[in-house]
């Protein structure tokens, strides 16, 4: 069932792509890696879970989870990034790792470390397209991911604040001389990045129905892989690399065995870093290697 595997890989890849874009936004604009995105994603899943179990329908739950995740990312920015402006990029990387530990442990204490399940929040209808089975859940996931990507694209390319973001990405000093409000750019970018990661958490909750405080490391770090494979800081790159990773993972599970899936994913990461460090679609100019 190759075609069915491809569809499943695409669903998984949609979430990787969203997380990858969340990492890539911050790296592309500020040249920094915010590891805590993985935990923002995890929290998004738990926020969504809490809302859905209280009977909230999918769409409002998704929006609220996204807003909350965006706010958490603003807190991360406030403590792990803002005080460290002007230090080499590895320093905020380490302090965002500190935030990862803080958020993971807090989630363990609040929700417990067991794997929990999403209750069915979308009515499941199965569509048979010839030999392939597509469920309404999968369509919702794919639709949400595509819609969010389009919204992000419009935000970056068509709005005033998006122009500011691109200006800062190209040259922060010139941008500030030209009157770009750096504060607003930082807040918008971190909020958007957190909201995307939170949405991914909600979608992963729908796909696997299994979430735990540790999915920030288990799944979130694959967003970093999606970012690097697509081209660091390149938003379209992460959108492309997410599905590639998802499909590679599903195929390796199907044909090599479940044990090889992380080897394939991280092997791909190292291969890309060594052979084509700029990634598939090329890194943004500022993301130096």
């Amino acid at each position, binding site marked *: 069932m190759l075609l069915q595997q491809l569809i499943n890989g695409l669903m998984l890849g949609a979430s990787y792509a969203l997380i990858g874009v969340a990492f890539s936004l911050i790296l592309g604009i500020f040249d920094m890696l915010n590891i805590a995105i993985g935990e923002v994603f995890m929290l998004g899943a738990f926020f969504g879970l809490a809302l859905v179990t209280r009977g909230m329908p999918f769409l409002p739950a998704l929006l609220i989870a996204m807003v909350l995740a965006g706010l958490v990312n603003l807190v991360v920015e406030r403590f792990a990034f803002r005080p460290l402006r002007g230090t080499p990029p590895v320093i905020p990387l380490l302090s965002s790792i*500190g935030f990862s530990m*803080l958020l993971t442990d807090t989630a363990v204490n609040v929700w417990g470390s067991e794997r929990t399940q999403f209750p069915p929040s979308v009515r499941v209808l199965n569509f048979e397209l010839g030999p392939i089975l597509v469920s309404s859940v999968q369509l919702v996931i794919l639709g949400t991911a595509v819609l969010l990507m389009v919204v992000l694209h419009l935000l970056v390319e068509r709005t005033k604040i998006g122009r500011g973001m691109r200006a800062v990405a190209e040259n922060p000093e010139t941008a500030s001389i030209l009157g770009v409000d750096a504060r607003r750019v930082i807040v918008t970018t971190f909020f958007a990045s957190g909201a995307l990661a939170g949405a991914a958490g909600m979608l992963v909750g729908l796909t696997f129905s299994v979430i735990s405080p540790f999915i920030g490391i288990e799944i979130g770090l694959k967003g970093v892989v999606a970012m690097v494979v697509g081209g660091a800081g390149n938003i379209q790159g992460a959108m492309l690399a997410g599905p590639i990773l998802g499909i590679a993972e599903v195929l390796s599970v199907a044909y090599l065995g479940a044990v090889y899936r*992380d080897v394939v994913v991280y092997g791909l990461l190292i291969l890309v870093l060594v052979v084509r460090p700029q990634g598939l679609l090329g890194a943004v100019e500022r993301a130096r290697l």
Partner: protein
Amino acid sequence: MTLSDYHQTLLLLTGINILLGWSAYLPLATGQLSLGNAGFMAVGAYAASLLTVQQGWPLTPAIVVGALLAAGLGVLVGFPALRLHGIYLAIATLGFGEIVRTFFLNFERTGGPMGMRGMSGTTLGMVWAWVLACGIGLFVLAHARLGLSLDAVHDDEVAAELIGLNVTAVKVGAFGAGAALAGLGGGLYAHHILFIEPGTFNFLESITMVLFVLLGGMRTFWGTIIGAAVFTILPDLLRFLKDWRGAFFGALLVALLIARPWGLLPRRTLRIPLRRLARTGG
């Protein structure tokens, strides 16, 4: 002087953590941040355990072979690592650590996910003999030409190359030596804790090694001793925090970096992107 078993264990773990801290310190001394040292630790731990448990080797040669294997792997990883800097090197080493962990998850001879047991024999004296030996090695290194080479490569690779230093050898050597220390620490740890599983050597373990160095200051190898000691003893003093200890350490790391982002690193320890400086300056 007699120490209770409990304090002996604490002292023994401090020694192992000093070795692991140095394993992160050495690559950092040449400007390379590795987030995958738990991978080298796993190789040392599993190799030594295979030799003692399944081949009946005595402990010390088994640990040495484990460290040498880790060193060999470190050199192999060190070469492609030359092409990467800063956060990209950190990401690549992180991926390496995950691959090693997955390898042992699937390696049946060492029990796969079930882990491995049957190791024993690490003593307090043995651990501290290794710490002393490696400490003397690092002391000599810090006061010899080679120590200056590390500094030079760390501060400015291009200038170091221009004055005739073999930058490749220095960086790959530091990476390999760091891997050897991680493997050594892994072998000693496995024969102390008596049971290892792939999850022992996860991403957080790699981070912890970097924390030892950060806390002690990256300027000197002996700072790591302080960092490792504090991080081994502190969790014990903080037992009243119970389940919140991980959160506390995360917050502590963030707070430390806010309070002294440069003070903790009294010197330009990690490469400042020179191009950005050049751009800002003119």
